[in-house]
């Protein structure tokens, strides 16, 4: 006995943020309806209604209640379906604080630095930005070694919160390597993270959720063309 739970996820295929709840839902074996939002077009009524503050994906709608912000959604999934699948967040308060700290580092410092370096037209800013990105990866390598304690993932033997957070960007890193020859996942500098990245991509819960690298390469190329044509119109 139990009510039919209605679980819907609004996302866009490319978004690393939308990938996160998908992985979490798979970890917990939760069935859901996926609604693809139009990346370049207008936002759906449902999205505007569910996220009036930010109008952004991903949005999880569980029994008509919207949950917003990717990492928030992951925590919500972990707490709601706590009886099924592995725990996504660690159980010890200090380890949880660590996971939240490093994921905030990734989202608030590291990825914004990568995004800024990718967009900027200034060579100087690009170089400075990429140094910051590389420095961040070195810090994450150290964090991984200390947190994983010899296990394949930040979460230990199974994928956890920090794996989902950083792992959602691995596709973009690999795509940029193909498109730009940018070797951020450099085995000589961050050997543990490189190994982790491959383990992450081959994991069963991630395999069919993360978009194919070639599709991402194509999409990044398209983004660049759009950005350039936008500039030439001004």
């Amino acid at each position, binding site marked *: 006995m139990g009510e039919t739970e209605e679980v819907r996820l609004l996302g866009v295929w490319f978004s690393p943020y939308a990938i996160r709840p998908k992985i979490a839902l798979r970890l917990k074996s939760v069935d859901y309806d996926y609604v693809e939002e139009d990346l370049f077009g207008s936002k759906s009524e449902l999205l505007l209604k569910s996220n009036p503050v930010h109008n952004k994906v991903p949005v999880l709608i569980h029994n008509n209640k919207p949950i917003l912000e990717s990492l*928030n959604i992951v*925590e919500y999934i972990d707490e709601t379906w706590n009886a099924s699948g592995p725990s996504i967040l660690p159980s010890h308060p*200090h380890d949880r*604080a660590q996971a939240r*700290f490093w994921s905030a580092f990734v989202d608030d410092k590291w990825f914004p630095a990568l995004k800024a370096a990718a967009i900027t037209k200034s060579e100087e800013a690009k170089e400075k930005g990429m140094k910051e990105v590389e420095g961040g990866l070195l*810090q994450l390598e150290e964090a991984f070694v200390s947190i994983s304690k010899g296990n394949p993932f930040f979460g230990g033997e199974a994928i956890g919160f920090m794996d989902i957070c950083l792992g959602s960007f691995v596709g973009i890193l690999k795509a940029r390597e193909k498109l730009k020859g940018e070797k951020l996942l450099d085995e000589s500098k961050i050997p543990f993270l490189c190994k982790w990245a491959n383990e992450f991509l081959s994991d069963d819960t991630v395999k069919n959720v993360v978009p194919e690298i070639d599709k991402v390469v194509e999409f990044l190329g398209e983004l660049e063309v759009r950005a350039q044509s936008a500039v030439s119109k001004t």
Partner: protein
Amino acid sequence: MGLISDEYVRLLGAWPSPFVLRTRIALNLKRVPYEYLEEEDSLNSESVLNYNPVHKQIPILIHGNKPIRESLNIVMYVDETWLSGPPILPSDPFDRAVARFWDVYIDEHCFTSINGVAVAKDEEERKAAIAKLEMCMALLEETFQECSKGRGFFGGDNIGFIDIGFGSMLGPLKVLEKFTGVKFIHPETTPGLFHWADRFYSHEAVKPVMPDIEKLVEFARLKFNTSIFK
């Protein structure tokens, strides 16, 4: 073997910081005995660099010998470690998600706008930041009505995660009100927040640690060398 919650607790902080204030309120709520260490110059402090080499910022909670960083992280850690006091985050997963969402909003939009008003280089910039901040207040008024459901706090009958997150910004807001003449929290435009602020200030976990407004005003004058503070 003692309980982990019995291990020695230290907090590295700075009295003007709203982020440090959050952590002190949380510790007070749970009646956790702790040693408070004022770090006047956090960027050059050895302890801060040692315990938070990534961001070099306070607050830092040191429990036993483990550092916990970032104010909201610390508040959650305190809530999860000292289970005997009143809960800071609600128990229902959806309500928890709502609480976390609003505290992130407060940091990313509200606090950013407060800072925006303080550092604005000209009248136009300042007006834009003030407008943004007023929008934040309107949204938070709505949120207060929804979350409190007629009770005294965002957290219900007692202060919770959003109360702590937003209440810590009341000092900086009052400072801005003094310098700009704009009333961000007003009995007519934000009646819920207006009365909530009084209740928050008088709460036993808040009163002893809320910085004196005159001292904050003086601090702002010295720190921000922009037009509104002259």
